[in-house]
C-alpha cells in the first residue's frame, strides 16, 4: 500500500519496501535578501536564525519537498534588456560583483525555469541603481563599487553612465511585460513581495522638499503593485500589511531587513497564498 501524504493530513508510516510518494514543490525566486531571508534561510552573525520555507512546509505539509532556485535581481529594466548572453568584456574582466554575478544579471531563467511558482519582489526596482555601458548599451549593477580595486573603479567610470532610478509607472510597465513573457512559457502562478515603508526612527512631520524619501517611494510602489495585481492577476505577498499587523518594531532589523520572526511571518503568508493557488496540492509527485 502506498501511504498518502496530503497537506495537513496524517502521515502513515511506510512499511518496509513501500514506495514513498514525495511531492516536490519547485519555486523560482528572482529577488534579493527579502526573498532569500524569508524563503531560504536567515543567517545573523553566522547563526541560522530562520530555516526558511523548507522547514515550514515540512512542519505543516507532510511529504512536500521544496526546492528553491534563487537568482539575485538588479532591476526590471535590466531583466527585460538581458538576452541570456554575458557581454564579452565582463567574462574577461573578473569584477567584484558580489551576489550580483554576471550570470544572474544576464540570466533568462526567470522566463524559462520549469517551476510550480515564481516569486518576485519590488525591492530591486525601489532600491537598485544601474549603469549603462556607453558604447554597447548593456545595463550593469555594480555592487558597492567604491570598494572595488582602483583599476576597476576607473574602468567603470570610463565605460558607464548612471541611469535614473525607476519611476513607479515604468517599473509596473516593466513588471507587466515580465509577467506576459513568463506566461508565454507557463501558467505557473506569480507572487510578488511588496515592501514595508516603515523606517525605524523616521520622524518627518512636514514632507515639503522631501518628495523622494524611501518611505514615500515604497508607498507609491506598493500602490502601483496593487493596480498591477488588479490588471494581471498576480498575487501580492503583502509584507507591508504583515508588518503593520504584528508590529514592524518587533519584526524589522532596519529599514529593509527582517528578523527571524519577521521572516517566518512572511514565509507563512507565502505558504498560505501557494496553498490558496493550489500549488501545494498540485506539486509534482517525485
Amino acid at each position, binding site marked *: 500500500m502506498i501511504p498518502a501524504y496530503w497537506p495537513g493530513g496524517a502521515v502513515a508510516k511506510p512499511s518496509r519496501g513501500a514506495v514513498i510518494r514525495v511531492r516536490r514543490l519547485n519555486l523560482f525566486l528572482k529577488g534579493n535578501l527579502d526573498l532569500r531571508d524569508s524563503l531560504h534561510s536567515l543567517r545573523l552573525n553566522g547563526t541560522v536564525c530562520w530555516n526558511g520555507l523548507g522547514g515550514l512546509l515540512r512542519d505543516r505539509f507532510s511529504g512536500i519537498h521544496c526546492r528553491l532556485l534563487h537568482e539575485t535581481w538588479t532591476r526590471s529594466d535590466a531583466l527585460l534588456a538581458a538576452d541570456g548572453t554575458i557581454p564579452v568584456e565582463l567574462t574577461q574582466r573578473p569584477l567584484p560583483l558580489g551576489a550580483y554575478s554576471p550570470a544572474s544579471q544576464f540570466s533568462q531563467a526567470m522566463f524559462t525555469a520549469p517551476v510550480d511558482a515564481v516569486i518576485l519582489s519590488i525591492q530591486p526596482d525601489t532600491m537598485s541603481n544601474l549603469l549603462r555601458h556607453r558604447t554597447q548599451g548593456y545595463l550593469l549593477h555594480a555592487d558597492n563599487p567604491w570598494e572595488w580595486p582602483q583599476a576597476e573603479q576607473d574602468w567603470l567610470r570610463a565605460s558607464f553612465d548612471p541611469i535614473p532610478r525607476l519611476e513607479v509607472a515604468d517599473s509596473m510597465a516593466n513588471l507587466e511585460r515580465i509577467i506576459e513573457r513568463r506566461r508565454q512559457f507557463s501558467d505557473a502562478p506569480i507572487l510578488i513581495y511588496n515592501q*514595508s515603508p*516603515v523606517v*525605524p*526612527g*523616521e*520622524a*518627518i*512631520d*512636514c*514632507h*515639503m*522638499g*522631501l*518628495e523622494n524619501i524611501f*518611505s*514615500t517611494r515604497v*508607498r*507609491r510602489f*506598493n*500602490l502601483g503593485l*496593487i493596480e498591477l495585481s488588479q490588471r494581471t492577476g498576480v498575487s501580492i505577498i503583502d509584507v*507591508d*500589511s504583515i*508588518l*503593520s*499587523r*504584528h*508590529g*514592524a*518594531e*518587533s519584526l524589522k532589523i532596519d529599514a529593509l531587513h527582517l528578523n527571524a520572526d519577521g521572516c517566518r511571518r512572511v514565509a507563512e503568508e507565502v505558504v498560505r497564498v501557494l496553498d490558496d493557488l493550489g500549488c501545494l496540492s498540485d506539486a509534482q509527485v517525485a
Partner: protein
Amino acid sequence: MEMSATIAINIQIVRGRDRALFFAAVEQLRGCLVAASSALSQEQKVSPPNIAYRFFSDNDDTAELMPGAVILWLFAALAQGNEPFHTTAARLHESIQALTLAVNGPVFLCTLFRHVPPFSEAEGGEARRLWLRQRIRRLNLLATDLSYSTGINIIDLDRTLAHLGAGPLQTDVRLGGERATAAAADTICGALLAAGLDDVVPEALLNRSQKLHGGLAGIMHRAERGQFLRPAGRPNADGEEHVGA
C-alpha cells in the same frame, strides 16, 4: 516667572467617539508641558501654557475657528467611501489650502492606520477589505503629497501604529482600544511639540518638552512598558473652550 501664551487647537471630528482620542492627545500635551515646566531651572522657569481647544466638523464655518493650530484626520475622507478618489483628492487639496489661509497657525493632517479588519460576507467580505486597504494607502500617500504641495504637517499615526502592530494594540483603522488610543494620542502630542508650538511656547520649555516626549523613540519606549505619558488630569476650566460637533 514668565507667563506663557495660550495654545489654541482646532480639531476636526468625524465621529463623536474620536473626541476621546483627541482629548487624550491634548491631555498628554498638557501633562508633558507641566512636567517639562517643573523640570526647568529657576532662571528658565515658565508656567505651562493654557490649552484651549475646540472640536469642529466638516460643516462648520472655518471663519469660526480659533487662531492657532488645526488638526484634521483622513478618517473624514475614508468615511466618504463612495466618492471617486480623484474627487476626494481635489476636495482635500482645496479645503486644506483654504484652511491654511483662514487660520493663523500650523495645519496637521493625521494619516490612517493601514490595518483593516476582516469583513463578514454581508459587509462585503474580502473584496471590501482589499478595497478599503487600497483606499487607505492612497489616502496616506495623498497626505504626503498634500504636505509637500501645501506645507502642512503630517501626524503619521500609521507610522507609529505600524511600528507597534495592530495585533499587540488590538486595533485597526478605526483606532479602537485603550492602547491604540494612547499610542495615537502620544503621536499627536509629539507632532504638536515638534512643529506646532514655536510661536506660543517659550523656547526653553518647548525644548524641555520635546526632550521629555522623545519623539517616536519615546513613544516606542513608553509603549513597550505600557507607560504612555500621563495626562495632567481633568482640564481646568480656565482658558478652556469646548465647542463644536
